[in-house]
């Protein structure tokens, strides 16, 4: 791989962790046939939750972070607790202390402490054509598809390496030729609400590594967030195109493509196969975290239905601060709005065994990460059922 003199110097004479970071980027690049390293404007790091990375992840971060600083804008994925209110989450002190060590490691290298899986909703979002190194599959697919920015689906260590060096290997979705559609998708089912999550869950296993192209996919940016998060859970898709909607649809079609049909039955099958629970202990809304606008919508529903079981809502500290009234309303009617963490990376097992959620990504990960049985259902229906 070709390295500039500046990159070569970082690899040979950088601090130990910078050398490790460069070695990691160069090795990943060589394995994937990249010709060079390119600058990124923004790194988004995953692997911040003690629930997911555990003691060995913490060890790595403490070793790695002690002698480096970030060289580009760097945001961080959700951790496993609300930093201000973790005691209310039923989390033992020893657990919170481990999590705090991870926070301190990241703080030490100068990240923006967003603790959010929706970095594109905080401040100025990335522009079309901008090169990023984003871990967090739901954020990477959103940045590529909805914003037209360019990132591969990074892992925690590779995004961290990009953060402290400012580079990423140029392969995959950084290159024009790898951003073309590979399959057309016809949705022959009603859409709306949770059904965007179901569409993502159902479509994933039907793909064979191709980038999907929709002639029609109505719905808001929020709907595409839920769809993309679910799709990225059941497949390695990190980009999709929607005709007359997403930034790159015009140049994305070439040649004859096969067509996949997703039917009403496919959506119902997905809902059934991810619903493993009978009676919910709580309703969990998040994964990805909710925007300020979504918090306002939930406040209206909470006031209308006044549910009788715990409703845990996961958002970013940023969105929470911009939807203060909505947060108050949700909490007045029995809900809890957590920041810094998210549905399937928090230790729900201290409190609950069966979680009802409208999130497809949540339904996918809750059983393995949080030992939960799941009821996957539309939010309004859930709130009505438990009112």
């Amino acid at each position: 791989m070709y390295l500039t003199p500046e990159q070569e110097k970082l690899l040979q004479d950088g601090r130990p962790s910078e050398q490790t970071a460069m070695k990691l980027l160069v090795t990943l690049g060589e394995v994937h046939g990249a010709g060079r390293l390119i600058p990124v404007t923004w790194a988004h790091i995953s692997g911040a939750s003690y629930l997911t990375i555990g003691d060995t992840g913490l060890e790595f971060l403490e070793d790695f972070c002690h002698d480096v600083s970030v060289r580009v804008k760097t945001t961080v994925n959700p951790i496993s607790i609300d930093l201000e209110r973790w005691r209310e989450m039923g989390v033992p002190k020893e657990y919170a202390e481990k999590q705090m060590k991870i926070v301190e490691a990241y703080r030490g290298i100068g990240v923006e402490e967003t603790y959010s899986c929706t970095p594109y909703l905080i401040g100025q979002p990335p522009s079309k054509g901008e090169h990023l190194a984003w871990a967090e599959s739901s954020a990477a697919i959103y940045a590529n598809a909805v914003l037209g920015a360019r990132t591969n689906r990074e892992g925690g260590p590779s995004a961290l390496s990009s953060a402290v060096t400012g580079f990423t290997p140029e392969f995959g979705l950084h290159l024009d030729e790898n951003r073309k559609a590979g399959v057309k998708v016809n949705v022959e089912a009603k859409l709306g609400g949770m059904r965007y999550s179901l569409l993502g869950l159902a479509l994933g296993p039907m793909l064979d590594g191709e980038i999907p192209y929709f002639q029609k996919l109505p719905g808001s940016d929020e709907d595409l967030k839920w769809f993309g998060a679910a799709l990225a859970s059941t497949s390695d898709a990190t980009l999709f195109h929607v005709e007359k909607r997403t930034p790159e649809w015009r140049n994305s079609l070439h040649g004859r493509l096969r067509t996949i049909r997703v039917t009403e039955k496919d959506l119902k099958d997905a809902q059934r196969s991810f619903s493993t629970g009978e009676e919910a202990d709580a309703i969990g809304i998040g994964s990805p975290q909710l925007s300020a606008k979504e918090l306002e919508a939930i406040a209206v529903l909470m006031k209308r239905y006044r549910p009788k079981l715990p409703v845990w809502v996961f958002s970013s500290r940023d969105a929470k601060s911009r939807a203060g009234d909505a947060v108050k309303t949700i909490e007045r009617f029995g809900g809890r709005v957590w920041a810094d963490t998210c549905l399937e990376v928090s230790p729900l097992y201290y409190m609950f065994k069966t979680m009802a959620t409208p999130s497809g990504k949540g339904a996918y990960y809750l059983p393995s990460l949080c030992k939960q049985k799941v009821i996957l259902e539309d939010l309004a229906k859930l709130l009505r059922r438990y009112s």
Partner: protein
Amino acid sequence: MRIQAKRLFGGRGQGPAMVSSNPISFLGGVAPTTGEIIDTHSPLSGRNVSGRILAFPGGKGSTVGSYILYGLARRGRAPAAIIVERPDTIVTVGAVIGKIPAVYGIPPDVLHDGEWVEVDADKATVRVRDVTSYDVVTCFLRNRGRILLLRRSAKVGTFQGTWAGVSGYVEGDEVFLERALKEISEEVGIADPVLAATGEPVYARNGDRLFIVHPYTFEVDTRNVRLDWEHAEYRWVKPAEISAFKGVPKLAEAYQSAANGVPARMANRRRGPPP
């Protein structure tokens, strides 16, 4: 034998091979403090990766598996070296952050479990002292979509009675492609074959011998075959039928590699312009 792999992370390691034909999930599959394989579904369950030359097809499961390799290395419990067939992100990241010597491109069945293996990841070589390797060319001749298979006679030294492409040992410093052309002329008497594609090598381990098979496809304009003493029979078959024949080891894999190989036009260009 000393075979050439590709470097994932530098350094050297030697030890007894631990061979897994299945992908390994490090998170939940390997105990991060001891190196014991705790995945009860794994055939290696209960064994320990520490100090072993771990040969496997690739990682699977959570990307947190990279940190497990790091945790092992930090405690001196990592494998002495890693030989991975397909370098996925989990294993690549784990090898780099754990500074574990690692190479890729070699399938695990090249090694026998328990034998002593030396890995020089700086040079990307894998060495087993008591095993001898042989470079072999194998040519799949294609005519109007059908592929020529030959049944080896009773007079040849290896794999008598099994089906194969046109094959031969590479001798000394001979250029592989020249050996291939020579074999086609001698074994089936077909002139002017046109190289269509060159495949990646396929490895066939047989006791203390390792055959490194270099596969090619050629287009030929005739189905007239003149056999020599090395073969008893021939057939022009459809590609999908190859796996149904009782072939030499890795016959179907060699064909797949040749069929998916680098097209000749590009292979020529790669060598650069003539002097």
